[in-house]
């Protein structure tokens, strides 16, 4: 069993995953506030709505048992822990650098809703980052219940406002304006993007547009004019009138909400792949046969968790979700992942869409690469079924991944079922991708594909799609196969 890597930024406590359990260690100083917050109407309401992760306080016997565990001894000592809470585990961890902008927007909306609701109960959100949110069952869940602290009723400012701007509003603004994806921001920046960075991208006129002016230009100009050694800026500006302080804070939340609403990603975004379902090369009989094949495989194996790799706009992810599976749908195109998100929300499907390129999956990130696990570390062995439909030629030709490697990855990802579509080099799309390099794949045919599958999978059935150079395979993972 590997030692847990606890979070470490919050002085009020830390959180770690240990033995499949999510444990939150709380210090003596923070415990009363934390427990008070969990008793508030806000916490109860959001927990009941599955928007705030449920927390259960462990009793003394349970804590004593954990204290004796070698991996947790250091955490107990370092944190001066007095209480441990267990949170419900989110089935598939996901991070802002894998979300399409639509999900970043939804995470921002939830963060703001919680900040506003907590205000009514006399609490304030002390940090406002997308890292406090995970997506589960098609919706965002706020996971850091320790982020709330008792608010000074005379304080009119929200210290986490700048962080909310950096991690939600500015990435969404950059996405709308320059099509910059969350992955391009959050892979290299934990705390979002600074107004000064966006300011450099803006043209002369754009710096004065209403949205840019208040989010980017004025903060940039003010930070240039302000003496960075002036500590007075960061000291609390308490007002004598608590009612006035609250009025100011409520007005700030309303303003931020309006800004967030104005940055909502458009419902239908176009990209190189978002129109694939309308422009693909299948005739109606071939597509119907493919759909029937996938549906039958799902009915036969009944996978509880499915990974749809190269999901495009999620047609087959929806099919898997409708069969009762919990689906993680990945596609390299964030516009496609966004389209899946919109569809899943509309049809209430249990699909988690992620903008992940299987050929360059998200790496482990954070301090010592230990804060956010890599996509493959999270995905390996997490699925009972994997769909790889109309994907293999992109990996073979565009990414130059050997066939054996693709099948080895599929073997690591699935516990049981693999539905894969084999595309002959004579296929029109395959030829379009090879661009004169047909010789590289001259030896590839169905027989070679089946030979490559043999060490890892048993062929349950296969079907040639009528009128195409494509063949569907339903494969079952060999126990003790050559992984």
């Amino acid at each position, binding site marked *: 069993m590997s030692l847990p890597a606890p979070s470490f930024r919050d002085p009020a406590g830390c959180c770690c995953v240990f033995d499949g359990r999510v444990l939150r260690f709380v210090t003596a100083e923070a415990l009363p506030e934390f427990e008070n917050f969990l008793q508030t109407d806000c916490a109860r309401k959001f927990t009941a709505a599955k928007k705030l992760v449920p927390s259960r306080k462990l009793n003394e016997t349970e804590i004593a048992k954990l204290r004796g565990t070698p991996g947790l001894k250091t955490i107990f000592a370092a944190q001066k822990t007095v209480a441990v809470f267990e949170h419900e585990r989110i089935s598939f961890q996901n991070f802002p650098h894998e979300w399409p902008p639509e999900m970043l927007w939804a995470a921002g909306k939830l963060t703001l809703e919680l900040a506003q609701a907590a205000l009514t109960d006399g609490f304030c959100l002390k*940090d*406002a980052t997308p890292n406090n949110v995970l997506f589960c069952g098609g919706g965002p869940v706020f996971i850091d219940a320790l982020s709330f602290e008792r608010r000074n009723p005379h304080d009119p400012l929200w210290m986490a406002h700048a962080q909310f701007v950096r991690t939600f509003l500015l990435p969404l603004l950059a996405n709308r304006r320059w099509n910059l994806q969350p992955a391009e921001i959050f892979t290299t920046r934990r705390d979002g993007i600074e107004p000064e960075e966006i300011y450099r991208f803006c043209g002369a006129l754009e710096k004065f547009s209403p949205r840019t002016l208040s989010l980017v230009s*004025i*903060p940039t100009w003010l930070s240039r004019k302000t003496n960075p050694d002036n500590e007075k800026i960061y000291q609390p500006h308490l007002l004598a009138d608590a*009612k*006035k302080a609250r009025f100011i804070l409520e007005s700030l939340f309303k303003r931020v909400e309006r800004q967030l609403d104005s940055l909502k990603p458009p419902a239908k975004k176009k990209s190189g792949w978002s129109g694939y379902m309308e422009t693909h090369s299948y005739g109606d009989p071939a597509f119907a046969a493919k759909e029937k094949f996938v549906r039958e495989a799902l009915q036969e194996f009944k996978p509880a968790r499915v990974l749809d790799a190269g999901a495009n706009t999620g047609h087959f992810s929806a099919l898997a979700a409708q069969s009762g599976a919990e689906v993680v749908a990945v596609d390299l195109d964030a516009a496609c992942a966004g389209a899946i998100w919109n569809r899943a929300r509309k049809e209430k499907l249990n699909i988690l869409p992620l903008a992940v390129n299987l050929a360059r999956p998200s790496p482990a990130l954070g301090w010592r690469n230990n804060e956010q696990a890599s996509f493959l570390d999270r995905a390996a062995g997490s699925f009972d079924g994997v769909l790889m439909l109309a994907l293999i030629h992109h990996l073979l030709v565009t990414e130059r991944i050997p066939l054996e490697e693709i099948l080895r990855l599929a073997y690591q990802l699935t516990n049981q079922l693999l539905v894969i579509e084999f595309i002959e080099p004579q296929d029109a799309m395959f030829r379009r991708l090879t661009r004169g390099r047909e010789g590289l794949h001259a030896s590839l045919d169905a027989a070679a594909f089946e030979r490559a599958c043999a060490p890892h999978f048993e062929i349950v059935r296969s079907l040639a799609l009528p009128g195409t150079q494509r063949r569907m395979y339903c494969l079952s993972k060999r126990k003790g196969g050559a992984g």
Partner: protein
Amino acid sequence: MTILAYVDPGMGALVWQTVVAAFVGFVFYLKETRRWIVNMFLKIFRRGQKPQDAGLKIPPAEKVEAETDVR
């Protein structure tokens, strides 16, 4: 009270938030003054006659209570 906030509050953003807060604080006083004047008139009219007869609208009792609630 111990403040455990540990995030970077920004510099320009925090100064801007303070400036806007000062402006909103001024708006708050305008609203309060307006409400005080309205209440004063209401009191005057209540002494003499029913305000409805004088063509004045009275804010619902619950609303007045909620607005004056100080946390």
